[in-house]
């Protein structure tokens, strides 16, 4: 089959690789019909995530048709149309029983590598480094889905791939980012980053009852989508002082909750950005927490800072004093996608949201390298790339 393989910093290419086969009884093989490039794939593309190996198949946002299943998969049939959640979860460990699926204790066969990095291991993830399982990803014609009796969600015929594909990651990710803010009537939510996850965080904050949502970015086309499609008020951080603007807009209180939908490759004006850029280049910190620091500083005393953006390792100049002295709550985690797929599918069916509004580019899988390049450099007002094999 053809699959998009990683070959080092800014080097991906579609290659012929062997077809996947059932390895475990609870595996299924899915013929992929739609697959997307995630913002977090760009961290792999830019070489910031350790334990990648040349030839690794990328991709963790995909859906398709079940073409084969192992003897342990009872709830799916060959021919079922399914969306696959990006975290792999066994459904039986204590974490899965608590619906903390991205903390599954059994789905990472390379857990020992993650333990070295993080203390304990999170779940395995499709196409996202060996430390997180070494699983072949879904930017391919076929994928092997472990624990297929737990993860894949059957999709009703009436909905298109575009409408349900993002249940695999970014819609639940934006939703969980807003949900952990425990939004109360009258709350103002600020969202850093207007990429796809930021857009879904804005939409979700409104679905969960936010009074106002203020979105921050530097690209006009992204701010425009946040205004026109997601309904946010917007700030361009290259034009205004974000901290002062947020204070002014919230009557001097600060936003009740702040969502970081940027992650480890943040940008910002001024010296702090240059400082982090240099430290990251010298490998003295792995992540640039520019948005996170600002979100913490901006948040109302007693408020919640929700970290949805991906951070991989270590950061520097973390304002712990602000968190302690102003009673801030930090919430984070890889998304427990399984928990959200069904309720969010219902919202899509009811017409409360159509997630396809973020799609700006459609390519063939063959052109994955071009897709990565366009998305990474934000050429051609790129927001989200969806590929078909």
């Amino acid at each position, binding site marked *: 089959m053809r*699959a998009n*393989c990683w070959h080092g910093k800014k080097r991906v290419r579609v290659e012929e*690789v*062997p*077809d*996947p*086969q059932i*390895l*475990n*009884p*609870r595996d299924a093989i899915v013929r992929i019909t739609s697959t997307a490039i995630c913002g977090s794939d760009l961290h792999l593309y830019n070489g910031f995530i350790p*334990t990648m*190996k*040349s*030839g*690794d*198949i990328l991709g963790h946002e995909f859906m398709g048709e079940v073409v084969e299943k192992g003897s*342990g998969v009872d709830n799916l049939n060959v021919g079922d149309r399914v969306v696959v959640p990006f975290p*792999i979860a*066994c*459904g*039986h*460990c*204590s974490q899965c*029983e608590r619906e903390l699926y991205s903390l599954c*204790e*059994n*789905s990472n*066969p*390379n*857990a*020992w*590598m993650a333990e*070295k990095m993080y203390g304990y291991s999170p779940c*395995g993830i499709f*196409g996202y480094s*060996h430390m997180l*399982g*070494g*699983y*072949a*990803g879904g930017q391919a014609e076929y994928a*092997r889905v*472990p*624990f297929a009796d737990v993860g894949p969600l059957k999709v009703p015929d009436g909905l298109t791939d575009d409408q349900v594909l993002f249940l695999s990651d970014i819609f639940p990710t934006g939703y969980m980012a807003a949900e952990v803010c425990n939004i109360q009537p009258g709350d103002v939510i600020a969202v850093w980053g207007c990429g796809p996850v930021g857009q879904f965080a804005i939409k979700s904050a409104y679905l969960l009852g936010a009074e106002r949502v203020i979105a921050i970015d530097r690209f006009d086309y992204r701010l425009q989508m946040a205004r026109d499609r997601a309904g946010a008020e917007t700030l361009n951080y290259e034009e205004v002082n974000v901290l002062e603007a947020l204070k002014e807009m919230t009557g001097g209180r600060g936003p009740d909750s702040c969502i970081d939908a940027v992650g480890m490759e943040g940008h910002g004006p001024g010296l702090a950005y240059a400082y982090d850029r240099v430290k990251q280049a010298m*490998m003295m910190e792995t992540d640039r927490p520019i948005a996170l620091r600002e979100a913490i500083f901006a948040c109302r005393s007693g408020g919640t800072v929700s970290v949805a953006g991906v951070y991989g390792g270590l950061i520097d100049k973390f304002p712990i004093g602000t968190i302690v002295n102003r009673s801030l709550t930090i919430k984070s985690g890889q998304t427990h996608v399984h928990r959200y797929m069904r309720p969010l599918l219902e919202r899509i069916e009811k017409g409360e949201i159509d997630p396809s509004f973020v799609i700006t580019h459609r390519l063939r899988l063959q052109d994955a390298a071009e897709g990565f390049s366009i998305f990474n450099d934000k050429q051609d007002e790129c927001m989200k790339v969806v590929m078909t094999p």
Partner: protein
Amino acid sequence: MEHDDETNHGNQLSTTLAWFSIALGATELAAPRVMRRLTGLPESTEPMLRALGAREIAHGISILVRPDSPVPVWSRVAGDAIDLAVLFSALGSGESDRGRVSGAIAAVAGVTALDVICATRFGANGSEGADEPPDWTRRGVRVEEVTTINRPIAEVYAFWRRFENFPSFMRHLESVQQLSGTISRWRAKGPAGMSVEWEAEMLEAREHEWIAWRSLEGSDVPNSGSVRFQRAPGARGTEVRVQLQYRPPAGALGKGIAWLFGEEPSQQIHEDLHRAKQLLETGEIPLSDGPGLWRPAQPAADPREIKELAGVQL
């Protein structure tokens, strides 16, 4: 693993050295050119610097994984000797910057001195006391590992009570054969492709509490140990504690070889316990397309390749 406060205190220096190893190794691996220029070495040494970097990271991780063992620290001393040899040979090369190479030699010599101090401290400060040799030379390898399995204690105990189950989750075990009620024959993969065998006697099996065994006279790998079972609080399943000691087949040399290839005994048992947990909780041991960093995360043309790398009998 358990180690007392005194050992912890003595290990601060080794932990610092471990992180130093990892940072230095990462720089050598990622930016060999920068390292080469800093140390004044000729351009032809870049691939070697990468190799030394990988070794340096391995040393650092080994020290962090086994803070109570002097073996990784002594291996750092051996690594220092290699570095010094490289630098001294570069001094004689016309392509080198002799001033910088001399500076690098001074720096490495300083680190070597620290490593030696650290390694010898284990003898003086180890939990065994100054008069006795440290534990690892007297009794061979000793390992303690623990995991929690989200299954009832009766089920977990029954699984462990059948030694024939062990090769399904212990990577190095080839077979276990029950010879009588208490005697069983074990066959395992030893270092460097050797196969080792022993017969074991079950000393005691207290239902839902513990199992203890000891190898019989004439074993290739003299060993003993116990597995204890305890109900985890708040319906969290069963805590399983494994404690075992063994003398490696070729003595210290065999252990040295196993260690060199990254097969740390405590790490092995830790991973074996994780596989037991996977098997009991999910009914299978999920296989990675890219186990470790041995192969890229893409399907294998022949799935047997992946099963072999996983090393357990499925």
